């Protein structure tokens, strides 16, 4: 095979798509690589949340009564509202991916804005819950934890609250990062970057957003909906 045939072959390629990075052969390879990259990242995230959930579960088995008591201190209505809000945001995110595939510029923008809006509502409700916990003296720490209603269980209730704030806090940080990404994507969608040939970034953004939602789907029952099943011995 001589050089000339190679170059002739190279010339047969259509002109490069503006978003094709030089080290990929074509948009298909780029799409596959970035999708796999996000899945790998989410695998890491599963282990990240999995670590703290594992610790949570060990103490839940050790202290069932305190866990039930502490979960009863959570406002489950707020948690339920937030669960619904997030599920709707997942729907609008999926619709944004669909709109970008179909090349509907305004549709993509509207759906991304709605997703951002629901994400914002979630964070607002979460912030309200946090402020209530502070007032109730439920934030863990020598000075801040002043909850006395059941002194026998207080240390373990504090332990629960430590997990509550660690897990919901990490989840909220992921939501804030997701909101930041959404802002950037809204700008790109408005500019008309996405279309039937190039929608991989929106799809990958969607993967991330759905993952963050799923984390919440686990956190909600684990933190809000525990009944003292272990409390009725005989």
């Amino acid at each position, binding site marked *: *095979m001589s*050089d000339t045939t*190679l170059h002739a072959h190279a010339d047969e390629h259509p002109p490069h798509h503006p978003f094709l*990075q*030089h*080290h990929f*052969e074509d948009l298909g*390879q780029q799409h*596959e*690589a*970035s999708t*796999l*990259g996000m899945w*790998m*990242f989410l*695998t*890491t*995230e599963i*282990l*990240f*949340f*999995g*670590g*703290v959930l*594992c*610790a949570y579960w*060990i*103490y839940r088995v*050790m*202290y069932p009564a305190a866990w039930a008591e502490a979960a009863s201190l959570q406002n489950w209505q707020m948690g339920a509202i937030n669960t619904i809000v997030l599920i709707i945001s997942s729907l609008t995110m999926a619709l944004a991916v669909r709109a970008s595939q179909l090349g509907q510029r305004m549709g993509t923008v509207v759906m991304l804005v709605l997703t951002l809006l629901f994400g914002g509502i979630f964070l607002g409700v979460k912030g309200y819950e946090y402020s209530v916990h502070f007032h109730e003296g439920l934030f*863990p*720490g*020598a000075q*801040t*934890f002043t909850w006395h209603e059941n002194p026998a269980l207080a*240390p*373990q209730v*504090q*332990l629960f609250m*430590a*997990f509550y704030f*660690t897990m919901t806090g*990490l989840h909220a940080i992921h939501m804030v990062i997701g909101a930041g990404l959404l802002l950037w994507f809204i700008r790109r969608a408005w500019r008309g970057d996405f279309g039937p040939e190039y929608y991989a970034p929106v799809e990958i953004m969607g993967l991330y957003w759905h993952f963050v939602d799923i984390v919440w789907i686990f956190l909600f029952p684990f933190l809000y909906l525990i009944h003292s099943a272990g409390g009725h011995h005989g």
Partner: protein
Amino acid sequence: MSSLTLHDVRITGAEGSRNYINDEYGALSWLLTKDHKRIAILYLISITIMFLLGGSFAVIMRVELLTPEGDLLTSDTYNKMFTLHGIVMIFFFLIPVIPAILGNFILPIQLGAKDFAFPKINLLSWYLYIFAAAVGLYVIITGGVDTGWTFYTPFSTQYSNTHVIGVTFAGFIAGFSSILTGLNFIVTIHRMRAPGLTWYRLPLFVWALYATSVVMLLATPVLAITLVMLMFERFTGIGIFNPAIGGDPVLYQHMFWFYSHPAVYIMILPAMGVASEVVAAFTRKKIFGYRFVAFSSLGIAFLGFLVWAHHLFVAGISVYSALIFAFLSFFVAVPSAIKVFNWTATLYKASVSWATPMLYILGFIGLFTIGGVTGLFLAALGLDIHVHDTYFVVAHFHYVMVGGTVMAYLAGIHYWWPKITGRMYNEFWARLAALLVFVGFNLTFFPQFILGYLGMPRRYHAYAPEFQVLNVMSTAGASILAVGYALPLIYLGFSLRFGRKAGVNPWGAVGLEWTTSSPPPKHNFEETPVVTWDAYDYPAMMKAVGETQNV
């Protein structure tokens, strides 16, 4: 010929052409580069600096241990020395060294790719490394930390009055650097292989880095969340790991070792990959049992996740779980042994070329075997209780980490140096350094096996007088080792200016990296290669060379 030849056996390439080094000039062209080869050079410089820093703590400790009395350092300072030595060497040297330097440079070229799938993320991972190192240096300058590199609770959360949060934060950030490296490697190996480069044609270095990356992705986030809980606990005074309010310090140890035992394989698997490359190149043979060696890497990565509690035998875990973990720890030795047997079988009846990389790898095979077998001693419950927390443990993991990983890294940097820089180093000085490293290493650490077996505990600055002779031997060995490590800095640096031009393939080795010029052009290959041969197909190459000579 109708297609690319089976093996490109060019001995000389186009000299003086543009390559990744002279493609652009200026500090910014390096600091903002997305070229994997330049990022590898950035890592080479920064990791070498961290190695010298970590080594200097070791030197101070070895000087202190010349005499039984604690006369040079206070016990508090000594605590900081071994802590900082461990943290710097593990998080900033051993974990990134082979993947981030050699892997970064060689992996895309071995795949026939222009770059990694995510060049910007590759650069980001270097910046994260630098940020973590900067936080670490800040901690060192402002007073250090004294918990040991394991940060055991409740000492780290309640009692230590040193910079625990700072240094665990640095470890947290360094972890993300390593996750991003692993992510990039996996995606690149899956999606960026050249046409014709099937999985079973991949060099074993690629298989090893793939297995390493799996461990990086799955284990590192658990360390990250553990350190988050530790920092949160120390910051607010809550007690996830504090027994006084219902927490469990042993849980911390479980979570820490769930990462840190697999992390041992992050450090040793790439070294095994280098060993396979070098053994093949300097015996001119196919690696015996290629598929066994390839899959044993994945086997080690998998089994490595099931043995963490062998670090907790005396921490109060139940006898039954200790028995299971002891059994599983024996099991993990099997894939490592498969590798050693296959390298040995490759060497059998081969005409071995005694070049510097091969010297290091012969040292690697022997020392890693000693390190591995003494690991089996420690996995045995009864013996572990006897030698727990003694110098036996110290000697064991230095045989694996220094005798294994560092030797293999030195082999790899010598093997690929001509490709990276385009220049040959001085073979005489290189062989001398390899000899000094081997002798110095054994003199440093073999006495520590005996010291440990006799009962000298680790992590004390003073010891019983009867241990002095062996300690003096160890310090003498460390001095030789230090000279052995300093020499390459000199002659490798020297070669950059005065070294002989290397040409395309100075070793006459098979592999895509030996078909492109040295140093490689910015996009690695003039045209994307098409692979039609197996890895290490030396028999076919020898035949091809013979035919060329006959013509």
